[in-house]
């Protein structure tokens, strides 16, 4: 029972390099999720019934499975089964992207349904096509409205990305585990890892809150940030 803080200091640069991998995973996953989420939300709300049903079952699937199980399923199972040779990093990014896509689809769907019907009607009355109405009138409002929920999603995905080490992606956790297994300084090292995640989480949330305030339209404050 001895603390060797010099291990923490020595390995800090190595651990911080892991946060680059974490950042790549999270940013790419959020971007994939945004695209999937927006397209699916439009499909679920405005699409024909069979399409809506298909998309809902996608959401149901990804929301019902634990992330850990999805990682194993895709990395060891489906990707190999499909003959895809993907790196652990790519696999994590794709799985997290698809998962957050399902959650984001629900966020955007909820926002769309909460929009007054008049907005869509007024757009059509001015001669816009359905697509124009959705992309020029509905979406700009939806996206603003969804930033708080989106920031919540960011913090979830960031924390989920810490599971990437189970399939060997070289992010913060994997590197921490590597150092810990060689130095036996588990406690200080994992606390350090926790602090890195803590900073990344709240920095991202604060940044998104800033963005939210910046793009907010006066007199148009739906549900704001929690705290």
């Amino acid at each position, binding site marked *: *029972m001895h603390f060797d803080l010099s291990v923490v200091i020595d390995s800090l640069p190595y651990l911080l390099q892991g946060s680059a991998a974490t950042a790549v995973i999270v940013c790419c996953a959020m971007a994939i999720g945004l695209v999937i989420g927006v397209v699916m939300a439009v499909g679920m709300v405005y699409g024909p019934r069979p399409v809506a049903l298909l998309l809902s079952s996608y959401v149901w699937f990804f929301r019902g499975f634990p992330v850990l*199980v999805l990682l194993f399923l895709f990395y*060891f*199972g489906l990707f190999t089964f499909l003959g895809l040779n993907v790196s652990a990093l790519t696999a994590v990014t794709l799985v997290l992207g698809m998962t957050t896509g399902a959650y984001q689809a629900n966020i955007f769907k909820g926002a769309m349904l909460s929009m007054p019907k008049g907005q869509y009607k007024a757009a059509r009355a001015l001669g816009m096509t359905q697509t124009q109405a959705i992309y020029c009138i509905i979406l700009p409002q939806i996206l603003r409205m969804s930033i708080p929920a989106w920031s919540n999603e960011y913090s979830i995905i960031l924390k989920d990305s810490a599971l990437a080490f189970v399939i060997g992606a070289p992010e913060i*956790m994997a590197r921490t*585990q590597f150092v810990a297994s060689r130095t036996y300084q*588990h406690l200080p090292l*994992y606390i350090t890892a*926790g602090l890195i*995640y803590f900073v990344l989480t709240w920095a991202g949330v604060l940044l998104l809150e800033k963005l939210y305030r910046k793009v907010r339209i006066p007199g148009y404050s739906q549900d704001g940030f929690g705290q």
Partner: protein
Amino acid sequence: MELSPFYQELLPSLNRGLIMTIALIVPSALGGVFIGIVAGTLRAYGNRITRSIGNFYAALFRGTPLVVQLFVLYFGLPNIGLYLSPYMAAVIGFILCSGAYQSEYIRGALLSIKRGQYHGAQALGFSFFQTIFWIIIPQAVRKAIHGCGNEIIYLIKYSSLAYIVTVMELTGEGKTIATEYFRFTEVFMIIGLYYLALVSCAVFILKRIENKLYIPGFGYNR
């Protein structure tokens, strides 16, 4: 119908894992709600000191991944001479983490009760405890239940992380067999369905409770 040896081995061990998973979820959910109520109340009504302690606790556990918390408990604490069994480490980690999220919903519910409700009760001669018991709690429960239920659903799925600290629950049992037979797609698909079933059960029960408690004006958002 005769099952192949693979399934003869898979299903009993998954069922064993399911029991362990439930044994993880139930105390964690109860403990999480309890901690959530205590921390949420302190954060909403406490004085400056208890409020900042509560806020710090919630920010800390909401700002770090659950895996890291589990690693600190299971691999880290032995550094200072504290040894927890895998099961204890998992349950304590789940309770602390889930309590932080629950406190968020409890705090929100308490703060959303309008000042007028207290005034109304006082003006009728209710004592402090009568006000809390008959007016505040019934309203807070209804406002918090949807969020707290969602949190329990998350907990069910994140209970799979117990596998990482070597608790042999659903995911752990499955992973062993999948590696043995090298049949990952099938095994993890089936494990996923087990979780899906657990989640669906929980959703069903929570929905029934919500409907039972439903009162006009206390709609759940979403």
